[in-house]
Structure formats: structure tokens, C-alpha cells
């Protein structure tokens, strides 16, 4: 694998944060203010995409920044995983900005300048995580992301937001300081390095019990991944405005969590060491697999019982995140490819669903599923998008979701762990069970049940265009999955 020096990485990470300046300056003119966000998003998309070909050629793009303390450096580095994640984050940032404009203005939310500022900051942090070349840089941007999303989660500044915000911080900052930081320090003192490598920072170390503990601290410490029992912040954080839930809690924040877990498994511990770790009879990696499988099933069951649409989506997200974690810990190339792809595939599907949930709220002010019977007649386009999104999350054609799920399933076969195969399949069934009734009831219901009637009244244009875009992209990803597939493949090959 060749290494190429690429200063653009720094530029990409800095663009959103630089956009803060014009955003704040033009805060009196909302149209101008939002155009800066859009411009910045467009610029990052173009720049990120321009790097794709080289990453696909198995080149490693690096951009060392500076040494912040002797032996510890801030550095950017992009491989297949980081590139895929960056594409997802920037593309969806653009779409979400459009959506935010529609949503925030329709609902006349307060503090919109603050909202767009912290949004941009969160994207910078997300890109920083995607591009981080070592554990310290990763940790830095991870923390920055937690902090910059706090004002977004608590945007409404009421009692509900306070409770959610508190939960958010306790789970996310608490675990990162309490578990990740000491684990990182132990790794650093043991190896003297924090730089990610395909073999793993700890490759070659003896699989001691202590490293097993460190492994668990790392995996559970990145609580953004929503692994049970550290998932409880996620449903709470749904009090945020819907665009925030959409981007941050279906895409950026939670995916940063699983991204970190993948990095830990493959590039901190390395596939070999992860497999070798054990506490006598029990292997830490088995513990993680079982917890992930448990999370998948239980969260799906909980999702079934939720009446709040966003809550149901949140629990669905928790389950889907554990798909990725389970895939990564299966330690086979196919499963790894699947989980990396799933980051992207799930993101597009899930964000469509969130957009639709928000669009319904903007148009008719309803949040609960029981109040949406027959709504397909009032908002057909929205509900079609919702249908496409749910297809992708369940993993059915013609959407991208099926591809990643196929890889994951094949990965379980490769690893010979048939129990997990059953988990994947059973969970897909549960996914159907909690999504299809919504769509079905929206379109096909008896006249007594019907709560909504024509004429067609879609939400404002700015709210309906984004879900249409993402729904189309979801379908396109089924037809042209090459970029994601290629990147995931490059990554899976680089860490074996």
C-alpha cells in the first residue's frame, strides 16, 4: 500500500468550521446564512469525491499535522473506511442542510444561527474522525463531536431537552473519559505508538487478560455506537429537531461510534490479536459478538412497541448499528466488507426515514404512528420515500441495504457462526414487522380507520426534496454500488 501526502485532507476538515465565520456574520439574513452552509457542503463533497479514485487504487492518503506532545501527533490519514464515511457524511450534510432550512423555518424554531453553527462544527468533527490517522486524533474529534452536538440535542432548551441532554452527556462523555481515555493511555504506554496500521497498533503483543479488558473498555467506551447497555442516550436524544436526529443520530454521531469500533478491532488490536484475546474460557470478542446480537434482537423487539415514529426509528438504529459491530467482530473479510458498506447503506436508508418523519411533523404536526393511519393519501410522495427507506433498512431490493446485508450474512457463513446468521435473518424479519405496518396502514386501511384524507398536501418543498433525493440515492446504490463496494473492499483487504 503506497502512502501519498495529501494536504487537501486538512482543507476538507476545515471547510465546515471556516464556514462558521460567514454564517455568524450574515446571521441577520437567513437566506445568505444558509447559502454558506450549502456552499461549504458542496465544496466538501467535491473535494472528498476528488480523492476517491486514489483511495480506490489502494493508496493511503496522509496529512500529518503537528506533534502536539513528544511522540504524539495529530495526523490525518484516509483509507477505504474513512473515505466511505466521509462521502456519507458530506453528501448527507448537503441534503440535511436543505432539509434544515425547510424544517426550521416551517416550525419557526429559535436560535437558528446557533443551530447552523453547531451543525457545521459537528460535521468538522465527523470528518475529523473519518480522517483521523491515530487514536489521539480520533479521540480529539470524537470528544469535539460529543460537545458540539450537545447544543443541538438540547436545542429546544426545555425540561425534556435537559433530561435528554444530561443522558447524552453521561453516556457519551462519561464512557469516553472513563473507559476510552485510560484504555488509550494503556495502549500508548505499552506500545509507544497510537498510529493506526493495517496490522493493528498492538499487533505482536501477547494476548494478556489486561489487553482483553482494554479491548472491552474500548468497544464499550465508544458509546456512540449504541451497543447495549450504553445505548440509552439514543432514544432520549430524539427530542432534538428532526434534521439533527436525521443527520447526527442516524448518520454522523452513531456512525462515528461504529466507525471507532471497527478501527479498534481492525487497526488498534488487529484481527489476529482480537481473535487471540481471551480470559481463560471466554473470549472478549465473543462477549462483544453476543452483546451485539442481543442488542440487535432486543432493540428490534423494543422498536415494535414504540408508537412514537422517531423513537421507533431510534431503536431500529440501535439494532442496525449492532449489525455493523457484529460484522466487524466476526473478523472475516466478507463480514468486514459488509459492515463497512452497511455504514453507508444504512445511512442513506435511515436518513430518508427520518426526513419523512420530520416532513410528516411539519405538514400535519403528528409524531405518533397510531395517528398516521391513512396518511398516504394526504402525503403520497412522503410515504413512498418512507417505503423505499424502510426497504433499505430491512435489506430488500431494489435498495442498497440488501447488498451490505448479503455480505454480512455471507460473513457469518464464512466464520461458521450460524447462530449469528439466524440473528441477522430473524432481525430482518422483525424489521419488516416494525416498518411494513406503518406503510401498509398509510395506504391501505378501511374507511373507519382512516384518519387522513385527500387532497394531496405535501410538506413544503424544502422538506420534501431531501427525502426524495436520498430515496433515489438509496435505489441508485443498489444499481451502482461500486464506490461503496470498492472502498469497503479496499479497506477489508488492507487490514487482513
Amino acid at each position, binding site marked *: 500500500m503506497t502512502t501519498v501526502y495529501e494536504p487537501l485532507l486538512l482543507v476538507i476538515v476545515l471547510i465546515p468550521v471556516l464556514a462558521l465565520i460567514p454564517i455568524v456574520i450574515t446571521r441577520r439574513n437567513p437566506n445568505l446564512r444558509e447559502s454558506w452552509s450549502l456552499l461549504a457542503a458542496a465544496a466538501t463533497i467535491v473535494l472528498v469525491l476528488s480523492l476517491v479514485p486514489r483511495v480506490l487504487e489502494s493508496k493511503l492518503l496522509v496529512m500529518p499535522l*503537528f*506533534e*502536539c*506532545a*513528544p511522540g*504524539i501527533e*495529530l495526523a490525518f490519514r484516509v483509507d477505504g473506511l474513512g473515505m466511505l464515511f466521509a462521502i456519507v457524511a458530506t453528501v448527507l450534510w448537503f441534503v440535511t442542510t436543505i432539509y434544515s432550512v425547510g424544517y426550521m423555518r416551517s416550525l419557526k424554531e429559535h436560535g437558528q444561527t446557533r443551530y447552523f453553527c453547531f451543525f457545521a462544527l459537528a460535521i468538522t468533527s465527523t470528518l475529523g474522525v473519518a480522517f483521523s490517522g491515530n487514536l*489521539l486524533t480520533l*479521540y*480529539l474529534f470524537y*470528544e*469535539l463531536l460529543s*460537545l458540539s452536538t450537545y*447544543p443541538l440535542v*438540547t436545542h429546544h*432548551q*426545555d425540561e425534556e*431537552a*435537559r433530561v435528554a*441532554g*444530561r443522558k447524552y*452527556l453521561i453516556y457519551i*462523555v*462519561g464512557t469516553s*473519559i*472513563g473507559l476510552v*481515555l*485510560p484504555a488509550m*493511555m*494503556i495502549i*500508548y*504506554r505499552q506500545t509507544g505508538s497510537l498510529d493506526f496500521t493495517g496490522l493493528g497498533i498492538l499487533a505482536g503483543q501477547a494476548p494478556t487478560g489486561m489487553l482483553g479488558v482494554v479491548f472491552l473498555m474500548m468497544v464499550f467506551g465508544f458509546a456512540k455506537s449504541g451497543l447495549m447497555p450504553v445505548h440509552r442516550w439514543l432514544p432520549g436524544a430524539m427530542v432534538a429537531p428532526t434534521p439533527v436526529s436525521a443527520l447526527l443520530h442516524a448518520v454522523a454521531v452513531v456512525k462515528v461510534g461504529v466507525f471507532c469500533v471497527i478501527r479498534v478491532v481492525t487497526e488498534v488490536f488487529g484481527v489476529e490479536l482480537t481473535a487471540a484475546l481471551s480470559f481463560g474460557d471466554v473470549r472478549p470478542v465473543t462477549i462483544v459478538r453476543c452483546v451485539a446480537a442481543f442488542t440487535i434482537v432486543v432493540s428490534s423487539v423494543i422498536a415494535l412497541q414504540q408508537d412514537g415514529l422517531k423513537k421507533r426509528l431510534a431503536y431500529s438504529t440501535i439494532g442496525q448499528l449492532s449489525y455493523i459491530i457484529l460484522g466487524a467482530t466476526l473478523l472475516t473479510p466478507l463480514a468486514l466488507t459488509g459492515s463497512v458498506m452497511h455504514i453507508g447503506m444504512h445511512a442513506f436508508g435511515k436518513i430518508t426515514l427520518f426526513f419523512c418523519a420530520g416532513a410528516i411533523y411539519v405538514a400535519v404536526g403528528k409524531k405518533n404512528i397510531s395517528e398516521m393511519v391513512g396518511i398516504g393519501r394526504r402525503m403520497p410522495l412522503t410515504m413512498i420515500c418512507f417505503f423505499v427507506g424502510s426497504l433499505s433498512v430491512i435489506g430488500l431490493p431494489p435498495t442498497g441495504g440488501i447488498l451490505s446485508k448479503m455480505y454480512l450474512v455471507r460473513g457469518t457463513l464464512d466464520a461458521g457462526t450460524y447462530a449469528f446468521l439466524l440473528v441477522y435473518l430473524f432481525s430482518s424479519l422483525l424489521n419488516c414487522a416494525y416498518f411494513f405496518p406503518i406503510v401498509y396502514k398509510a395506504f391501505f386501511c378501511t374507511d373507519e380507520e382512516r384518519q387522513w384524507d385527500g387532497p394531496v398536501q405535501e410538506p413544503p418543498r424544502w422538506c420534501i426534496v431531501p427525502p426524495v433525493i436520498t430515496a433515489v440515492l438509496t435505489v441508485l446504490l443498489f444499481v451502482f454500488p461500486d464506490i461503496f463496494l470498492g472502498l469497503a473492499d479496499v479497506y477489508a483487504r488492507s487490514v487482513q
Partner: protein
Amino acid sequence: MNHEWVMQSGWISQLPALVVIIPFFMAFIVALVGWSHEDRAIFLTEIGLLLSFLASIGCLFVVVEHGPVSYRMAGWAPPMGIEYRVDFLNALVLVVITSCSLISVFFSKAIVQRDFRTRKEHFYTLYLLLVTGLLGITITHDAFNLYVLVEISALTSYALIAMGRGRAAFSAFQYVMIGTIGACFYLIGVGYLYVKTGTLNMSDLQLLIADLHDSRAIKSAFVFIMLGTWIKMGLFPLHGWLPNAYSDAKDSASCLIAPLMTKVSVYIMLRLMLTVFTPSYVFSNAIAGELVLALAVVAIVVGSLKALKQTSLKRMLTYIIVAEVGYMVGGAWTATASGLTGVMYHIISDAAMTLCMFMAVAVISFKRGRDTFDVLPGLYKRMPLTMAAFTVGAFSLIGIPPTCGFFSKWYLLSGAIDAHAWHYMAALIFSSLVNAVLFFRIIEKAFIEPVHAAGAEATVIEMDEAPLRMTLPLVFVAISLIAIGVCTNYIVRAVIQYAIPEGVG
């Protein structure tokens, strides 16, 4: 690095003396001039501190370029004369003291104006003398001279604290008692050292003590000196006086005392541990080391828990100081190079963090009249700049990169891991978490909680920021927290690594 550079001539050679002499004489000038022209007192104080700051910067550069600098007071050669010496251990501490005091005096003009309608020159004279004392402690290489300077800074700080509000006089009285015990313990220790070695110069002491490691007198000297410095820095369980004294002082005084006094005491401890007694002696007794480390752990835990109980900002911060003292004592007694690096770095970063937080709280109580938690709601709207600085300071105390608080924690944690001091590591993490709870509770109140006018609905909040003369220094300090963090590499490579004596693991 034993290479030493004694400058023979030129004005540069006078820098070490100038650092201390300028504020010292300026104190008298301020007292005299202020008697007739009260309003010039602040200007003269600023000039004095600025010159001293420049001199300390000069010293730092000379040390970085040429190695330690020795200055003989009045030309008397050590060990007969008093030697001032700037080396890698204290060059940065000097800069920290001068810069903190300069910023703090610039910042607190309006507060002093309000607190002291008349006789402001008294405040500034004491202020300058306190800075002189702290600088002298840092720069002197003579064990007895150190005692005298400790007492100078203590006496002035007693007076400054007693000027405060409410029960300040009583708190100051308690501080006098405990402070005198601390200083006298130190003096007893120095007496024993002198009796055994016949010298007071620190380098000389180091040479002579090397042959006396088995002496019981040296051992008791060490114990007395350590007890003295621990009392002075408020290490648990000797911390009782600290929260009262610091929180009852006027904001103008506590902005100087809180960031510097404990840090300078930690410096004294380090200086005596590393230069006089040398690590091989200090760390030879493993059980004693364990005990001190355990004490530090308890200090961290107790300080953090007590901070949780407080309902006023300043008082909460004073308990955080108690915990931070535990950080530093623990770091030093991990007996590892990273631990010691952590302590030296933390002296700098904690001074900056504490300054930032005390300044922010001073601004809040200046504008809102109190510093209890009930003034918090709506503060982000009202005072965005102040709260931004407060937030940065809070993040630094929690230890979030890239603020300097993260890097001191980095080194201290490294030290803990190297020494296998898991309880100390757990205490550091615990304290970080408690700080997170503390500050996010405040941030949450200030950001989310609605403001209720008496009996009415939530009111519209107007921006009501403090004057620029207060917010600018505050923002500057907040930015410097990040700057120090980002420059950690330079600070450690250029200065701190040479201050670690050889033979520390």
C-alpha cells in the same frame, strides 16, 4: 544537563535579579505615589509587572538557549552569598507567575475600583509584594531565603484575603495560623539540613546530602519540609483552610492568589525533592511513596466530591484546587519521568485554567452581583464571551483535547500507568468525570434553564456583557489554554524534559 552558564557582564546578566527586584521596588513606588495620586497606582503596577514579565521571558529564552543561569546576589559567591538560579525547572514557573499577575491586574481594574473606593494603592502594594514573594520563592537557590520569601508572600496574602467580604477576616486568621505552622515546619527542616551540612545553598545541599542518606536528621528534615509544603499547598487532610481563605477573598485578590499560591508551593516541593534531596533519596522508601500516593488519591477524591456539594461557583473552584493539588502531589510521587513531566506541565496548565475560571467567575459576580448557581440561567445569552471562556476553562479542567488540561492529564496518567499506580489513575479519571458533572451541570443551567422574572413568564434576555477590559483578558486566557495545549510538544521538548533529573524511570 549540568552545563551551566554564568553570565559575566551586560544587562542580560541582571535579568534574574530584575525579575524580582522590579516588582519589589515598584511596590514602594506605588505606596508612595499612590498616597498622593491614587489613580496612578494601577498604571505603575502594570508597568512594574510588565517589565518583570519581560525580564522573565528573557530569562526563559536565555535558559532555553544556554542552559541554567546563576546569579549571585551582591556578587557574593555561593554558598556564602545567596544564589538566584534560573533553570529548566523554574524558568517557566517564573513566566507563569509574571504573566498571570499581569493579566490579572489588568483584568481586575474595575473590580478593584468597586471593591476599594479609596486607598487602592494599599491593594496594589500588597499585590506587588505578593508577586515579589512568589517570584523570589521560584528563583532563589537558597533554602533559608526561600523561607523568608514564603513568609513574605504569605503575609501579603493574609492581608489580601482579610480585605475580603463577610467572614474573610476570620478565614484569614485561620490561614495565618495554619500558614505559620507550615512555614515553621519548613524552617525546622532547613535547620536540620543546616546543622548536618553547614550550608543553605541548594546545589551544595544536594552534594552533601548524597553522603548522608542514612542520617536520621536528614530524614526528619525531609519529613518536616514536606509537611510544611503540603500544609502550604493544602494537600488533604491539611486543606481545611484553603476553601475558606480563597473563596472569601475579594475577586481581585483571589484571581491572583488562587492560580499561583498552590502552584508555587508545588514548585517548592518539586525543587526540594529533585534538587535538594534528589529522586534517589526521595523515592528510596517505597512504603512512604505508597502512603503519599494514597494521600494524593484521597485528596483528589475528597476534593472532587466536596466540589460537587457546593452551590457557589467560587467555592466549588476552591475544592477543585484541592483535588488538583492531589493531582500534582500524586504525579510527583509516581516517581516516573512522565509523572514528573506531568506535574511540571500541570503547574503551568493548572495556573492558566484556574486563572481562567476565577476570572470568569469574577466577571459573573461583577455583573450579576453574586456567584451562586441561581444567577446562571440565561447566562449564555447575557454574557456570551464570558461564558465561552468559562466553557473552554471547564473543558480544560475536564480534560478535553486540545486544551492544556488534557495534556497534563495525559502525562499524569502515563506516570500512573508506568508506576502501576492504578488507584491514582482511577482517581484521575474519577476526578475528570466529576468535573464533567460539575461543569455540565452549570452549563446546562446556564444554557437551558429559563429565566423567571418575579412571578412572570420567562423573560426576553438582553445581552449584558462586561466591559472589554475584563472580557478581553479573559478571552485571551481562554485561548491560551488551547494554545498551551497545542504547544505542549514545544514546552516539553525545549524546557521540561531537561528539568527531569537523571535516574528517574
